[in-house]
């Protein structure tokens, strides 16, 4: 099947599940598993077409850290410098998850020993990138799955 791209294959599988299998499924539990599987297939298609979402989060973390380094350069110059060093070092990492790990460990390293306003600034930076992550992760929300948990 060299004629089809990976995402075309997955789209065909997804269509088949939606059109041929969903209407036949009898139990609520199987139905919610199936709808969640279709959601997962859609996500893999998106990754083939738009790339790894980890790259997006890394970009958000970097932007938040750059913003924080700038904001605190006068008040907390040491923190500002350490943020810049962390960003610089992270640039040498090509694997998106390795880089993600490095940046978050870097933020944790700064946060765990920070106090008062300095800690608040770092928390704000974390909160900032998390907002983007939450928007990105929203695609995983299957209302049918959540409703079944009660």
């Amino acid at each position, binding site marked *: 099947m060299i004629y089809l791209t990976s995402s075309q294959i997955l789209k065909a599988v997804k269509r088949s599940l939606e059109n041929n299998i969903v209407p036949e499924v009898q*139990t*609520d*539990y199987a139905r*919610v*598993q199936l709808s*969640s*599987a279709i*959601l*997962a297939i859609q996500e893999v298609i998106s990754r083939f077409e738009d790339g790894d979402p980890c790259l997006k989060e890394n970009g958000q973390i970097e932007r938040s850290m750059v913003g924080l380094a700038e904001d605190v350069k006068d008040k907390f110059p040491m923190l500002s410098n350490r943020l810049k060093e962390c960003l610089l070092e992270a640039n040498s990492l090509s694997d998106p*998850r390795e880089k*993600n*790990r490095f940046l*978050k*460990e870097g*933020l*944790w390293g700064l*946060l*765990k020993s920070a106090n008062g306003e300095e*800690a608040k600034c770092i*928390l704000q930076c*974390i*909160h900032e990138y*998390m*907002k983007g*992550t*939450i928007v990105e*992760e*929203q695609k*995983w*929300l*299957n209302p049918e*799955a*959540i409703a*079944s*948990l*009660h």
Partner: protein
Amino acid sequence: MAGRLGDRLRERVPELGVRRVISLRRSPGGLSTENYYVEVETEGGISRWVMRMEPPAGVLEPYDVIREYRIIKALEGSGVPVPKVFYAEEDPEPLGGRFFLMEFVEGKVFVHTDPVFQQDGELKAKVHTAFIELLAKMHKTPPPEALLPPLEGMSYGESEVQRCKQRLEQIELLPDPLMRYVIQKLEEYVPAEGPRVIVHGDFRLSNMIWREGKVVALLDWERARLGDPLSDVGFSYQSFLHGWCSVSGQFAQLYTRLTGFEVDEKRLAFFKLLEFVKTLLVGLSAPSALARGENSDLRLFSVSFAGISLEPMALTFLEELIEKAEGGADR
């Protein structure tokens, strides 16, 4: 699986009089321990039971359905309404996980979002009052020995924070600086030890079965432990799980009247955050359970999103904790 269950029950508990297991159907409800509806033909006729089985991995590890069985068994006749349990299987071999069997309790299950509560204020007040009365009753019931105790040499608060810390270490696929920070702060603000009671750990409307205006069964004891009553009180402040049905205002006063336990604002702030962190850890465990390839419940994708989306709310609970702890009288 139905055939294997029937064989096992005939071999191990002949007194149940099982002729055959007619059907075994996975319930869509619940998240962690797997629930199955069991229809059996016994010498006395057709019966409906519920089987609770341990998954190989999941969001509430470590699992111990046998402990849950023992807790429920010990509570029979205590005044805390529990389903009748019949049999616990300690060998995971026959069905692929340890399990226990209990009666299927007929009745109504409410959730705080039921539209009926918007239309019927009287029912809402009645349900809320019964919720508090049951919580009080449970907290005043002598704790069964089977309850999970705090870690050796630690207060309940210290022990729970330690468990959260260990759990986060187990499940982090990528670092989570916010959760690490919140747990670090919880360690700093552990309150003085309080009374030790039965903590249900998941005390909410959707775990209660109602019939003729009263709760006839309190379910899901998998998170139960021996601990501070404010744990369950703090848990009730998670608005997305409880809405209006919390132990606050006049209902907190009622709780105190019934139990003699003060709902101290300072100590409560710690337990609100602790319970919120425990709930978050459930959601944040989902990717790790899937990554290890030991859980096949794809609803975990959605559970993971729920955890991530709620995480920033921990900062609000943390602010409250720090504000209330100022002065440090209880530290």
